[in-house]
């Protein structure tokens, strides 16, 4: 039986990592940087959180203090993603390297980094546990409002999540607001549309690009952290995160660079990912075809927007291009 009350929370849980990734990537793309390293950044964010939390849980023997158990992986994740962001910004903005190549290299590196430490952490630290299962930390991350269960269907659909779900939505809304309604957002978009004009108007292009890339990466990294700590119950297994990073990039296009739309887009994509579980009679094979849907839909959106040529729906004008003041 198809049950909406059971389906929606699971779709939301699937969607939130995508929402984090999508919001981060949108900020970066709005400043003209096509960061294809996002899948790698999300892996790095996740594994840094895992390493931080693993060391903490090992050192205190399972008796965790909730606030610290949340703060340590959170900060570790932000720091890891920030370093990846700085790397991308340094390579593409300061060294003017090609964004696609740097991005892909970062993804290769990031996924390798995640899988290496995910697979070797026990060995490297000499811990005597068979696998990484951070259930104590995960419990803190998943703590929902205490009265969620008493509110029936409403509570199940809206209140049953850990704090990071609400954080994702809040970040998306704030980002959408900043991008469209504030001066900073306007200047950021100017940098992405035409850096030369922005430069002439006195906007510090380099600064905007650096900040957009770094903040974008930090938000995206949280998506990885959410996946491990909340969705996967604190269990790390290599490659489990899969292609969600690319799905986040697809979501950016699907939502036409609008983080507020991405809130619903991410739930839709998340829903497509698990639709097979809720449709009776769908076999293992059909499941793979459902997973294809988000990409197909994204391609269709991409085609339609390019055919209609509506200006507000186009990718940022200078997306993917390096900027060198003296090249004009």
């Amino acid at each position: 039986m198809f049950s909406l009350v059971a389906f929606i929370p699971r779709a939301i849980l699937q969607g939130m990592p995508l929402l984090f990734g999508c919001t981060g990537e949108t900020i970066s793309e709005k400043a003209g940087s096509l960061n294809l390293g996002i899948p790698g950044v999300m892996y790095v964010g996740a594994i840094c959180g895992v390493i931080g939390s693993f060391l903490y849980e090992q050192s205190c023997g399972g008796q965790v203090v909730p606030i610290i158990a949340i703060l340590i992986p959170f900060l570790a994740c932000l720091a890891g993603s920030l370093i990846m962001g700085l790397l991308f910004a340094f390579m593409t903005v300061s060294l003017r390297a090609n964004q696609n190549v740097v991005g892909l290299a970062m993804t290769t590196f990031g996924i390798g980094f995640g899988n290496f430490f995910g697979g070797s952490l026990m060995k490297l630290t000499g811990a005597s546990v068979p696998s990484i299962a951070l259930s104590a930390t995960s419990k803190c991350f998943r703590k929902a409002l205490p009265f969620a269960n008493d509110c029936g269907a409403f509570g199940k659909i809206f209140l049953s999540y850990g704090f990071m779900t609400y954080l994702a939505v809040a970040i998306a809304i704030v980002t959408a607001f900043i991008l469209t309604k504030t001066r900073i957002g306007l200047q950021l978009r100017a940098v992405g549309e035409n850096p030369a004009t922005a430069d002439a108007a006195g906007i510090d292009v380099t600064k905007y690009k650096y900040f957009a890339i770094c903040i974008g990466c930090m938000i995206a990294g949280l998506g990885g952290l959410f996946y491990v700590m909340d969705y996967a119950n604190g269990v790390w297994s290599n490659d489990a995160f899969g292609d969600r990073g690319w799905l986040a990039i697809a979501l950016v296009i699907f939502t036409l660079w609008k983080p507020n739309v991405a809130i619903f887009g991410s739930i839709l994509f998340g829903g497509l990912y698990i639709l097979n579980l809720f449709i009776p009679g769908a076999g293992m094979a059909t499941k793979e075809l459902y997973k294809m849907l988000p990409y197909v839909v994204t391609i269709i959106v991409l085609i339609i927007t390019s055919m209609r040529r509506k200006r507000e729906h186009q990718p940022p004008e200078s997306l993917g291009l390096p900027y060198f003041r003296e090249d004009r």
Partner: protein
Amino acid sequence: MKEKHKHIKEPLVKLSRRADLDRKHSWSYRALAILAALVVDGIIIMLVVHMNPFDIYSTMFMGAFGTTRKIWVTLKELSLLLLISIALTPAYRMKFWNLGGEGQVLMGAWATAFCMIYLGDKLPSGLLLLVMFVAAIVVGGIWAFIPAVFKAKWGTNETLFTLMMNYVAIQMVAYFIIKWEMPKGSGHVGIINQATQAGWLPYLGSNSYALVVGFVVIVTIGMHVYLKYSKHGYEISVVGESQRTATYVGISVDKVIIRTLILSGGICGFAGWLIVSGSDHTITTTLAGGMGFTGIMVSWLAQFNVIVMILCSLLIVFMGQGASEIATSFGLNEAFGDILTGIIIFFIIGVEFFINYKLHFRKSSGKEEA
């Protein structure tokens, strides 16, 4: 702040574009970058496994070239990576970002496996190989043709389109893997036609991958000639330099884009054929192993120079094989190689900046300048 300075503050470093740096200098810069990358990699390995750097690199060397078998595996990997880079090169010459190599290889592999499974017992071996070959190239070509048409007709962003096509391909192959799985429920296709070896590329003597390597050499030479000496090759570079010039001199840009992409995808499909028929004899969603992406980096880093492409591929494959040797002997995860390769690539990308730009430091005016 601003009132304190009487004249405008001069930035610490000023950049200017270099006129072409001569080859000797630019290559010595690149060599230095690779050396620096190897040193950094060595340090990282040292920190992780506590070995001295010379032992590390000799272990890695043994991992890549230690036995005849290992040499052949390394050569095969090298050839495949080179082949995929070669396939992507004509597209880049045209400034068309084909990020879909992974999907095109996979679709070629899918077509190959399809023929092996459904025609394996119906056709004689030689004809079967030919059918597989044609099918792989056609399907790979189609996979690149789709984004090319939309790029040519409506200017649809090809970077994002080809990227998405990868995952459509992966999911499609995932679907067929479950359809074909042997035994049922295992989630694997297993070795196809193990008993009859129908559709397997024959081994030449004990040199198991000689044919694979041979094919790649032929394609490499062919592509070099095509790009350098044919009319098509000329048209590709004109379109890459400026689409307006191309239109002006009477080149049909749409046609060149579509034709070149079919070629690019077709060769990727060919790589898929080589992988399934010549080496793996099975199909998985990860069979391209990220080479579609690594190939992009190789192709771009080598600036379309075939010799450099070979060296680049060799370096990347060597690091991959070597790191997996270290990882296995220390019980670490195989992804180690990806970290090391990533670092090398960052260095090679980074050095391009110093080749293309010149730094002018501010003349120090009494104060200490860093």
